[in-house]
């Protein structure tokens, strides 16, 4: 159980290599080994969405993914998206609309929003609520989050904010 295995992956654009126990989840690897604490663990069974990260372009639950499964993959966390300003408009809209309170679910919310808005078209409020059905928030009433995502969707569609053309699937 404690024999170490070697993993190498690209995290937020930087290659990392570590010897870890095979039972370490990707969430724990990011949080504890790499000290990237933006990704959170809320339920550790793939329900609450606080741990969502992007793995090779797909949004995945890092609590349900073993770090060894991610070896060789490209991972992006909220820190990476923040630093390369890929979600600056979403973060600004969340801030202005107060679409967060304690902030614990927020990195996961931003991942879902980022994936949703990387798809073509402008989602309806109902579609936004549906897309958020894997993200629990206990503080807000969700409405502010829907409002913020809707605003960015419309702004991006209207070309108010230039966005990187990247595809992320939920």
């Amino acid at each position, binding site marked *: 159980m404690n024999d170490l295995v070697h993993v190498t992956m690209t995290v937020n654009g930087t290659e990392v290599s570590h010897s870890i126990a095979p039972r370490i989840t990707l969430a724990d690897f990011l949080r504890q080994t790499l000290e990237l604490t933006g990704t959170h663990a809320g339920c550790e069974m793939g329900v609450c969405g606080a741990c969502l990260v992007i793995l090779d372009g797909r949004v995945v639950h890092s609590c349900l993914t073993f770090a060894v499964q991610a070896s060789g993959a490209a991972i992006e966390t909220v820190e990476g998206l923040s630093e390369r300003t890929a979600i600056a408009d979403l973060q600004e809209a969340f801030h202005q609309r*107060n679409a967060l309170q304690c902030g614990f679910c927020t990195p996961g919310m931003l991942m879902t929003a980022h994936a949703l808005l990387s798809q073509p078209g402008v989602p309806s409020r109902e579609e936004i609520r549906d897309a958020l059905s894997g993200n629990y928030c206990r503080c807000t009433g969700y409405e502010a989050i829907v409002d913020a995502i809707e605003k960015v969707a419309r702004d991006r569609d209207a070309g108010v904010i230039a966005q990187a053309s990247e595809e992320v699937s939920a």
Partner: protein
Amino acid sequence: MSVLTPLDRPNSYIGRSVPRPNAKRLLAGRGRYVTDITLPRMLHVAYVRSPYAHARILSIDTQTAREMPGVRLIATGEDLAKLCTPWVGTMDHFKGMKSPPQLPLPVDKVVWSGQAVVAVVADTRALAEDAAEAVYIAFDELPAVVDIDAARAPDAPVISPELGSNLCFHGKIDTGGVEDVFAGAAHVVEEEFHFGRHTAVTMEPRAIIADYDASEGQLTVHHATQTPYQFQDIYARHYGLPESRVRVIAPDIGGSFGMKLHMYHEDMAVIGLSMMLGRPVKYVADRIESFVSDIHARDHRVRARMAADAEGNILAMDVEDVTGIGAFSAYPRTSVVEGNQVYRLMGAPYTFRNYRADLQVVFQNKVQMSQYRAVGHPVACTVTERLVDMIADKTAQDVFDIRSRNMIADDAYPCTSPTGYQFEALSHHACLARLKAMMGYERLRAEQAELRTKGIHRGIGIATFVEITNPGPAFYGVGGARISSQDGAIVKITPSGDVHCSISVTELGQGTETIIGQIVAEHLGVDSNRIKVMTGDTDTTPHGGATYACRGAGIGGETALQAAKKLKANVLAVAAAILQDEPEKLDIHSGWIVDAATAQQRMELSEIARIAYFRSDTLPPGTQAQLSVAHHYAPQGYPFAFTNGVQACHLELDVETGLVKILKLWVVEDCGRVINPLLVDEQIRGGVVQGLGAAFFEECVYGDNGQLTNGSLADYLVPMAVEMPDIEIGHVETPTLDTQLGAKGVGEAGTAAASAAALNAMNDAMKPFGGTVAQVPMTPARILKALGHI
């Protein structure tokens, strides 16, 4: 000179929707929660938990576990009892209340399934869990007392034999004359209500790191809590440490809702484990541990009846509340506060004077039940508002009309409720009228009638509420609990003219730091972006009650306001000395000393600070510039700042499946002076969703043997975005005259009445079928049962 609104004055921040500066950090993934903190040489604890709800501990075998990799310490109840004195969750003002003494880990008996029994400390949490599996505990299972009626039965097994029975507290309120009123009333309605247990489900579970340094006898605790000062006191007293050597730091907190202000056994044990090891020890509950060890809320069975005259004027209420609290009363706030608020808040919006209530608080073999957001409010509100709707039915009146007829008039204040609550000024009628207009009530009723003919069944429910906020010393202090009723602020001007403010009210994501910044900026006369607010550290912030029961704005905000005014007077005194003018003729605007009459700029605040700190030799002899002030404020006047409001719920019921679509919620509330509308509205929305969770989804389900059968987020339903409606909010503002600020609380308002409005809406939707529901959560099965389908 043009006409200015109050918000056009310089530094006018109160009443303005200012985004939270600290939210940017959280949005960048740069929050620092206790779960994120790692200290040098830190160890991790896992607990071996009881599989039984009630059992004697016969023996504990830790031999194998001790030899496993990475294990540093295994501690039992006896080990910790050598360091920690027991605690008892009672308060003196609840006469006759009793509860057994508790220790961090049990010595001879377990009293709920999931209770921590043995602590295993290892290099990592995973290694600690590995070793925990190798600990063998021999139990002798005892009969579990689960149901609240069974717990009260004369032949029930007594969980704590030394207490004599399973009754924790028995309270009675009787204004007299109730029997006569009921005997002579034209209408009497009666119902038995059931309120399931639910729990907070904070997204960040409970988390704590205890770090005891024997070299200086210093205990530092990083703790995900709302109330660091309360825990400083508890850790110091029960572990025999000087209070000044106990530091509790509460950094970013990932949700709390009242759950993170109670004493938990595992948290208390962590202190002792760190003292034994001389190393930092971290405990983070996993989600299953949260379900079996966080406080649960509600758990009431209420029988209630209401009497009215022929016109529908409410005459009296008669209430019997039985509430189950687990095997002991929570510490230090007790588990009686919930029931106490239930039976004192009943009927609060209405004018009747005859009231009788009986409260029984009973022990059972379940985890502790105690204060959670809107303590007691949803229960009192649901019972009252459902009975009011039943009177409306009996007298063929509209739900708005029956309330208008019976609510206390907006000009009848001050007044007192039959249960003794003193109301300074409430605005039920103004709120009700506002709500009716906002929701387009007549149109909704017409639409409802039309849709019913097409087999679409919609319901409209309204619920009026009174909310308890800003408790003073008569709340906890009177009962002997060491929980501060006052709060403090230290406001200082830095040499650059910036402002640093440390306060005892804590930030939980609701925006405390932001509103304190707004208040200080406005009353000191500086730009809000020059203000930094610090919270949550007993070493660097003044002592205070911190954030519970909606005290942040009303008490913390008033403290900050008074502190800012005091500091401003100091600054103007120094400025007057420098400018050779009268302090009364000066003012501060946007960081400048100005002429009060003309707003002419005289001197920058930063220049005052520079002179005061670096060139005090140039000040007139005898001048000591006091550019830091410490100020404390405790509520006086009314014991609570009661607030009020009304909610409406619109839903659609599928009578074939029992599934419900919540279409819309409306809330009108009166929290007095609104400091930041953006934050107030989001507090209300979040609260409403927690109330809707209780109404439709959330329930901690126990088996007959006391096992929690749905302790995971896959089994326990939390409201999700797709199930929640848009929530429209309106305000009526009746500032309290007890403070200069005029703000009351708002954190409970959403939760207080959402489930009541939902229950009334459900019964409205079911009207054509004759069924009624009086139980939350209103699950599809319960709805189908009410409809007679199953």
